[in-house]
């Protein structure tokens, strides 16, 4: 709950916040605005420094004695290693183009959520310790000392950035605030100041292969339940293969697709589609996680977790890899995988066995997004679709941050949606495509203890959904990201409860007319399919 009023304030409620320079305002760690720290067992498992019990709201964070030296050495090392970090520290002219582009600032009004100021949190320390002008002029030059309070401030604000990169779209110099946040988090990791919502999935993924630590037999059980539901609702018995050597294609998707609602319905969509095509593909219980929370931890961790995808592709001897609807997974695949774990020269350039289309964009990574794959099938008229089965739905599409801004996949999902449902409405232009607003739960923020902050940061997205709901009666928000499917569901429940969330391939699964199917009266969710006028007359 918010703070209680102190007695003095009862007689003199001050409506205006005090006017202070940003360097003099310390963050308040209130429940709902910060994430719980990583459990020591997870840090130990990953060989990460300073595992301990501690709390952000406590005064003593139990930092190592030489914490300052550790951070400054860490900064020096990263300034030398990553040219982009050095450039981003030096180049900002504080023009303000990014200032009002962050969803947390727009929804909450905390100035330190303006990307320029979030970057200044670290840039001020850079100036004070690594530039001559900063050392001499100090605060006049925007420089400051590195203190324990600065560390607390970093922790507070670098875990209030979803690394969505909307601000970078507007920066005339191309400064990528997400990369600054990533550096900030790497430095915090050196002190053991990290969050459990990131470190536990990382530890689980490293050990078991997916975020919840689901072992192969439990994973098979979950598939069993989905396949039972498919048999009930579609009338087709599907028997997908797992860990099958010699398959042509390895399919990798975020694990939330097979254990969380509403992701499971998207997963059923994949299963139906790939079965109908008769594709020679396999799932893997080892590469059972497309998501990569290493992206929210450190470059080393991204590489460590991502490596399993290529390793499994090599072990199974597949030709190429098909990937499901995930967000940050695609930033990793598109922008890091090839340099970190490639070249994947043991794989072949992906070619659709159904249409013969060569996916030249995936020539290097050898990994194709399922939206590209399905859009190509529709374009080549390979699918029999009945969009009227989705007639109860009035659909809009949320461009997930990473697929849109990190890989530019904007048209394919829209092309698919327009072929599998009859009622599609776009949200306003400045809230979609490259300018899309984040769900406010990405980059490891999507945990329940962060609820207040997430609802705040999700306001701009929800506000645009509200608009199409009011104007067009939209009741379904489609997206291509597992984190979105989880966090937007909650966001809608708070802001626009009439709107439910779905993946693109759930709609595909509903509309797909399959060989041998029974009369479809239920959607994959088990909702009744609206009878069309034609049906009523039959």
């Amino acid at each position, binding site marked *: 709950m918010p703070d209680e009023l102190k007695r003095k304030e009862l007689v003199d409620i001050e*409506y205006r916040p005090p006017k202070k320079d940003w360097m003099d305002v310390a963050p308040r760690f209130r429940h709902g605005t910060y994430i719980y720290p990583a459990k020591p067992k997870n840090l130990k498992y990953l060989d990460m420094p300073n595992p301990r019990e501690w709390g952000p709201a406590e005064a003593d964070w139990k930092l190592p004695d030489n914490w300052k030296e550790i951070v400054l050495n860490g900064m020096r090392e990263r300034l030398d290693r990553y040219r982009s970090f050095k450039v981003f520290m030096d180049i900002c002219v504080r023009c303000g183009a990014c200032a009002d582009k962050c969803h947390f600032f727009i929804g909450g*009004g905390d100035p330190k959520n303006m990307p320029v100021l979030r970057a200044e949190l670290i840039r001020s320390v850079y100036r004070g310790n690594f530039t001559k002008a900063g050392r001499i002029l100090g605060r006049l030059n925007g420089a400051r000392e590195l203190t324990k309070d600065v560390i607390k401030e970093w922790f507070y604000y670098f875990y209030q950035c979803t690394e969505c990169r909307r601000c970078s779209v507007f920066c005339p110099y191309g400064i990528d605030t997400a990369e600054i946040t990533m550096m900030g988090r790497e430095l915090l990791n050196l002190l053991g100041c990290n969050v459990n919502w990131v470190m536990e999935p990382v530890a689980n993924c490293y050990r078991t292969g997916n975020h919840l630590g689901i072992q192969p037999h439990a994973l098979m*059980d979950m598939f069993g339940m989905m396949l039972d539901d498919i048999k009930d609702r579609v009338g087709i018995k599907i028997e997908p293969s797992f860990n099958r050597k010699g398959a042509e294609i390895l399919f990798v998707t975020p694990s939330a697709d097979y*254990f969380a*609602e509403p992701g499971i319905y998207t997963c059923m969509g994949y299963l139906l589609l790939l079965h109908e095509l008769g594709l020679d593909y396999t799932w893997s219980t080892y590469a059972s996680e497309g998501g990569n929370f290493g992206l929210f931890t450190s470059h080393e961790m991204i590489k460590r977790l991502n490596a399993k995808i290529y390793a499994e592709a090599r072990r199974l001897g597949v030709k190429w890899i098909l990937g499901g609807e995930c967000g940050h997974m695609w930033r990793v695949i598109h922008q890091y995988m090839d340099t970190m774990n490639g070249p994947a020269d043991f794989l072949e350039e992906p070619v659709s066995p159904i249409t013969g289309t060569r996916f030249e964009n995936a020539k290097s990574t050898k990994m194709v997004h399922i939206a590209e794959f399905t859009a190509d099938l529709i374009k080549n008229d390979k699918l029999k679709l009945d969009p009227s089965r989705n007639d109860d739905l009035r659909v809009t599409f949320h461009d997930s941050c990473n697929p849109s801004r990190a890989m530019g996949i904007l048209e394919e999902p829209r092309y698919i949606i327009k072929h599998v449902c009859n009622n599609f409405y776009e949200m306003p232009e*400045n809230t979609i495509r490259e300018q899309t607003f984040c769900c406010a739960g990405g980059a490891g923020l999507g945990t329940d203890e962060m609820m207040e902050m997430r609802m705040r940061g999700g306001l701009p997205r929800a506000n645009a959904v509200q608009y199409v709901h009011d104007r067009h009666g939209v009741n379904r928000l489609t997206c291509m990201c597992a984190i979105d499917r989880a966090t937007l569901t909650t966001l809608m429940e*708070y802001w626009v409860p*009439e709107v439910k969330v779905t993946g693109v391939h759930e709609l595909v699964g509903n509309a797909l007319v399959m060989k041998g199917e029974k009369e479809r009266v239920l959607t994959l969710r088990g909702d009744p399919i609206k009878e069309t006028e034609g049906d009523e007359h039959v």
Partner: protein
Amino acid sequence: MIDRGINDVLSEKRGAILTRWFDAIADSYPANASSFFKDRKDRFANPVGSAIKEATETVVDVLIDGTSMEMPGKNEGEKVYGCLDRVIRIRAVQDFTPSKAVGFIFLLKRVLREELQQELGKDGMYGQLLFLESRIDSMALVCFESYMKYREKLFELKVDEFKHMAFRLLEKANLTVDPTGDRIASGKGAPESSDMK
């Protein structure tokens, strides 16, 4: 019937009242945010500012149009309730104490008193102002109800999210099915979502 006097005065001063009240609310945020909420006109780029603007205009217009000693009629009441609810839904998740989240409505009383200061000596004007202030007090109570509703909603969401996240795991442990066949995770038995509107 209320003397036309106060309505006429309010109508004349509508612009000034709106600006001062809006600015006072915007100033409850830190300086950079305050100027952004005031200046950015696009409702999608600035949902907070546009919600506050809509609410201030609706409330002030309802007060100006109130020609009867009765409390606002159903339509009017719903309009006021809707726009105040929207602002409270936002402020309930922003960095405010409960009193500050709800207290923005009282800023209007201060603005009205200051704007009407010169007129208060005139016949019946003071009594009419007191009547308007009572209406503002009622609106404050409505805001309090909304505030509690949304804070409670936040806690509900935490629980629901946990259920969704582990949907299949709960199902596997036979924790999601009740004798009627309704699934816990589907939220059956909970109030209809339209109640939250």
